[in-house]
């Protein structure tokens, strides 16, 4: 297979013209089943299911999805070199159909794979860890709205087909193409609900704050996908007063929870600010840079904090635990915090998603979305 991520070009590999041998070369075998029930039983028997029913990926359905993505089905999206395994567009599309996506969601699936298969994401370790990291993704930009993604009430839970199935398409690909089966190459001790899907749309923030895609260096009219391996979301509440400083302290209190494996270990954090908290912070004239700087500073932990939590003082065996100039252990350096606005109205809810496992083990990666026929990234 050849690496080819160009969009908008002709698709020389029409899978409906390929025979079973060609399809197998691209990473998919062809099987005959009597009906949906048998298709589901078969996928379960192979251990490549997430446990929920799948939509049978017929060649016709897969071809439709591939067309919507605009890439040659034979193109290689990337590989996990530590597993010596790769992913083709055909495999990604097959898993996406299994997950139940509409064809127009596929550009988001492809951009997500572009990000997850970037070496900085560290797919091999994060897919296999006992820490049970999920693949968390923020879609930022107009295409997310076009396909009906949810940035509002209940965005991290059930109810929206795009949010639910795009993330599921990625998880099924990780299982099917990279062998991330529970108990084998996925050693999650507990796992969490976000491993089924944790894809959501950023609500463009209140001015003058800039959306994530712009802060990541992309044009405002583009759409991007930002991924990071995380634990499950931790919902936090602050409705007691309207002080920006107090709101930020509540966020930091959640982040510096010493029981989390990332406490004091220079971890990633995705912070999702709910609408009331965003308004309080914006109205106080706080910039997003100030928010991030404050969260980084206030989420530091002391050796005493770690001792009180039973963790014990850091020692030489914990190579990633080193104090800063003030003697604190940094839970989240500013460059490892991403803040986005999303969520529904309430009396004062927000969410933090702690990154998985501390320093060096997986980073934020942002990739632009490419939609066939469009002049630029969408």
């Amino acid at each position, binding site marked *: 297979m050849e690496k080819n991520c160009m969009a908008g070009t002709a698709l020389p590999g029409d899978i409906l013209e390929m025979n079973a041998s060609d399809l197998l070369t691209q990473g998919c075998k062809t099987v005959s089943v009597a009906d949906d029930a048998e298709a589901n039983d078969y996928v379960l028997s192979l251990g490549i299911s997430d446990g929920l029913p799948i939509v049978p990926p017929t060649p016709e359905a897969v071809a439709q999805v591939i067309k919507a993505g605009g890439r040659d089905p034979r193109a290689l999206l990337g590989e996990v070199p530590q597993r010596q395994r790769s992913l083709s567009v055909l495999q990604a599309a097959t898993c996406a159909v299994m997950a139940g996506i509409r064809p127009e969601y596929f550009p988001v699936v492809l951009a997500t794979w572009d990000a997850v298969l970037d070496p900085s994401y560290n797919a091999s370790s994060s897919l296999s860890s006992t820490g049970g990291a999920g693949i968390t993704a923020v879609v930022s930009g107009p295409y997310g709205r076009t396909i009906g993604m949810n940035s509002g009430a209940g965005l991290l839970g059930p109810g929206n087909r795009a949010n639910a199935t795009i993330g599921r398409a990625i998880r099924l690909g990780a299982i099917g193409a*990279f*062998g991330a089966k529970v108990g084998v190459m996925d050693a999650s001790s507990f796992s969490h609900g976000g491993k089924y899907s944790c894809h959501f749309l950023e609500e463009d923030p209140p001015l003058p704050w800039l959306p994530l895609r712009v802060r990541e260096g992309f044009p405002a009219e583009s759409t991007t996908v930002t991924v990071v391996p995380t634990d499950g979301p931790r919902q936090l509440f602050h409705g007691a007063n309207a002080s920006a400083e107090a709101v930020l302290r509540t966020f930091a209190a959640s982040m510096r929870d010493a029981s989390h494996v990332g406490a004091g270990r220079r971890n990633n954090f995705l912070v999702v600010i709910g609408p009331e908290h965003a308004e309080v912070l914006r109205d106080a004239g706080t910039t997003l840079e100030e928010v991030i700087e404050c969260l980084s500073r206030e989420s530091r932990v002391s050796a005493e904090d770690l001792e009180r939590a039973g963790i014990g003082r850091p020692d030489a065996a914990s190579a990633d635990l080193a104090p800063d100039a003030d003697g604190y252990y940094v839970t989240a350096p500013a460059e490892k915090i991403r803040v986005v606005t999303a969520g529904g109205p309430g009396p004062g809810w927000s969410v933090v998603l702690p990154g998985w496992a501390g320093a060096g083990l997986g980073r934020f990666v942002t990739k632009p979305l490419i939609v066939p026929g469009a002049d630029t990234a969408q």
Partner: protein
Amino acid sequence: MQMLVPVTVRTKTIGSLAPRNDPGGPVVLGLIDNGRVRSADMLAAVSEVLMKRGIVNDSITLLKADAVATEEERAELTKRADLVITGVGSCGSCTTRTVHDAMQCDMEGTPATAIVTEMFLPIARGVMDALGHPDYPIIVVPHPVWTRSPEWFAQTAELIADQVLDNLGVTSRP
């Protein structure tokens, strides 16, 4: 009804493992420590036993706490080390790294073996399978290791020493 099903696709041809030739004298041991709690203790204990037996005369440690060893790091280590032991695979991601690093050193020409705990044998086998050597010889120790005493590491090192030497092709036992 016809349907498609994803299968795994290998990206590289399978490399051969290093030949096992008895070194015939004391060697330099390379240790790749995956940074997990007490991994260093287990590797040090094995190294100490092999030194006491006169098989190892020096050891070099590469600490890789967050990612697999790069090709350059492996080359630097194996330039000086005759044999390599990696460990301890006692979680998901660290087991993948530990087995991967041993197998890569081996496929690059230096006999190696990996120490993993029994609970993570399935994931170790997943890596062995993925890299094309499903029967790759590794060392399995009880799980967990992070709660153990210094005496336990010393005893376990004694117990596994012969298997370590077998895996590395060392047949002379002074």
